[in-house]
């Protein structure tokens, strides 16, 4: 190709008549070919361009429909997230409130529990009793209200019916007699002897 080009260039310089003829040849060549090649691609290109534009428009429409659909979904989810967050807040506040010492003490007392102020320990290794055990006298009964908590104003105190308490006490009595059978303490943790 470069070889050919060089030859044309040299012809131009050395022999203008040949160059002129070559130019004329080129002009005639374009005039003939141009009309036949122009007409057909124009329609194809136009159609494809229009189709492309159409496709883009449709795609964009779909996309924006999708996005705005998503926006509604997000909005709805956000709203339900807020609602759920409020529910979580509400129940965790309730939980913290009822787990306050005032609430626990009042409920324990309502269920008939008393605290024992004389600590005593049973050492497992040799079964020794450390301290001086005594039965509970219920030192601080009714004192829960001395340490106020205005959050608990409306919180109900769990009161079991007297029958339920009695039944529980009876059940406790049976289990304690059952387990009262001596468990030998030898070394370390006590374990029942099995044969």
């Amino acid at each position: 190709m470069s070889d050919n080009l060089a030859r044309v260039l040299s012809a131009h310089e050395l022999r203008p008549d040949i160059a002129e003829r070559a130019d004329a040849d080129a002009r005639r060549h374009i005039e003939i070919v141009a009309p036949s090649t122009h007409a057909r691609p124009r329609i194809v290109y136009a159609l494809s361009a229009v189709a492309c534009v159409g496709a883009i428009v449709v795609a964009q429409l779909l996309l924006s429909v999708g996005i705005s659909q998503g926006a509604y979904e997000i909005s709805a989810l956000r709203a339900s997230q807020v609602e759920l967050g409020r529910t979580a807040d509400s129940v965790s506040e309730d939980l913290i409130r009822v787990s306050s010492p005032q609430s626990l003490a009042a409920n324990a007392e309502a269920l008939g529990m008393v605290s024992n102020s004389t600590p005593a320990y049973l050492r497992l290794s040799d079964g020794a009793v450390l301290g001086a055990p005594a039965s509970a006298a219920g030192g601080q009964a009714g004192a829960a209200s001395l340490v106020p908590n205005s959050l608990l104003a409306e919180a109900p105190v769990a009161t079991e019916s007297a029958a339920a308490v009695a039944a529980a006490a009876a059940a406790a009595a049976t289990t304690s007699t059952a387990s009262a059978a001596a468990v030998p303490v030898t070394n370390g943790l006590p374990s029942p002897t099995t044969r």
Partner: protein
Amino acid sequence: MAKTSMSSKRRVAATVAVLVAIIGLFVVRLVDIQVVRADALSADSLGNRSVENTVYGARGEILDANGVVLAGTVMRYDVQLSPKNAKEFTREVDGEDITVTVADAAAEIGAITGQTGAAIEAIIADALADNPESDFAYVSKQVDVDAFRAIYDLEIPWLTFARNPSRVYPNGAVAGNLVGFVSAEGKAQAGLEIGQDACLASDNGTETYERGADGVRLPESTVTTDAAVDGNDVVTTLDSDLQFFVQQALAQQAQSTGAAWGNVIVQEVKTGKLVAVADYPTVDPNDVSLTEPEDRGSRAFVAPYEPGSTFKALTAASVLDAGLATPNSEVIAPYRYLPANGADVNDSSGHGDLRLTLTGVLIDSSNTGMSKFGELLSDQQRYDYMTKFGVGSVTESGFPAEESGTLHPADEWDNQTAYATMFGQGLTTTALQVSSIYQTIANGGVRMPVQLVSGCRAADGTLTEVPSTEGTQVVSASAARDTADMLEMVYQDGWLANTWEIPGYRVAAKTGTAQMPDGEGGYTKGYLVSVSGFAPADDPQYVVSVSLADPVNMNSSAASAPVFQEVMSQVLKKYRAVPSGAAAPDLSGSW
């Protein structure tokens, strides 16, 4: 040809004229929109599309040593209404439209907020009387989530809601004296809330987003202009369960003895950590208004008093440390002692000359006997011991507005003060300082910094501002041991032996009954009665220090002894301090 050119020229002229007219119209409109009404329109459009939202940063929590929340942040809601729009409206119930009058709506709101319907109507009427165009009035501030939801579900068109984060104290008055409280606007006002405000404080942020005509947030339009910063948590050394127990025990005894006020301190011997600091009366930070202003703080930190005889343990430890006496050193303790410097020392009740050992001086709590031991040291030496024990300076607790008490320099003591300071008069200490003195004696003479806050905990769990845990040797270990042994004798043989007995345990304790200054240089008739001690005596774990001011029904330390007994046994039980079973030392009180 000329004709056509004329008509075409006219046509061109007409077209140009029409074009100019149209462009002119556009220009006028453009100027109108872009220049004349620009501000109003753009504000309008922003208002329609763009919404600015406050993002609340949560103020940090105050926690006890086990992570129990003593102070936390919750979201509350302010209910507001538009008085000028408060009219009847229709509500759809089961497919039927029902007209709801203002009175009905007010009654419905009132049933939830605890107001009367009339009160809410009055709010509307008042606002309208003030300004007929009034568009804003509060119905109720800081209602909780449940109430907010219930009111929201009423779908009353003229109600609006605003979020308003608020402080909550789930345990009520438990440690309310220490935690403090914040104002309705969220400003720290007392206690750790204000002392640790730098750690707790949060920063609110803002976010802006755009929304469509139907109120839906446009995707990807959120711009956080200012990020919210949550506060850090303050971790205290307290145990909320024990604190509750101690407050109960104190309140019960204070009420039955008619005490004006009182406090109880429980301190860990080995670390100096405060496990419980109870005050009576005490504040419920959820509703500060229920408590008198002077009862809203912690007197244990801010109310110094003359400690009285509990201070004798310090004098005894100083004399032992200086090597000038032993627990068995002997003195003759008269009822009245007139030292050479002209002072005049009396015992609380008349008695003949007693032949007491140093141990016996503590058991009988003899002022004259203690004077004879105390004078073995120079005033300056005793002053130095006192300052090393922490008397006269604020502790390391970091509690806001903590008092240092008053300890004048030794060269300013007059003759009487020089002796009075040996048995805890002529100087003032806070309850905390007394507790610290006993901690030092219990801990082999090593005073640990008093600790209330273990640090400021960031979201990632790192603890900053951790206080120093370096102790100082105040008296020798043997002097401390001997003092502890003598205090055990006081517990065992003192006049309250039956009242404060904790079966099975070895305890060391000392009572104090001090006259209370009336603030005008004299003394009132009331006494401040106290008991300080530690257990188990052979391996001390906890100091318990009880003070009751002016218990009118029982004006002696017998009033505070039951609280000491109850609290100490609870502490020993709770922390599983097992009695060793070893025999107590046998020191003789007389000779």
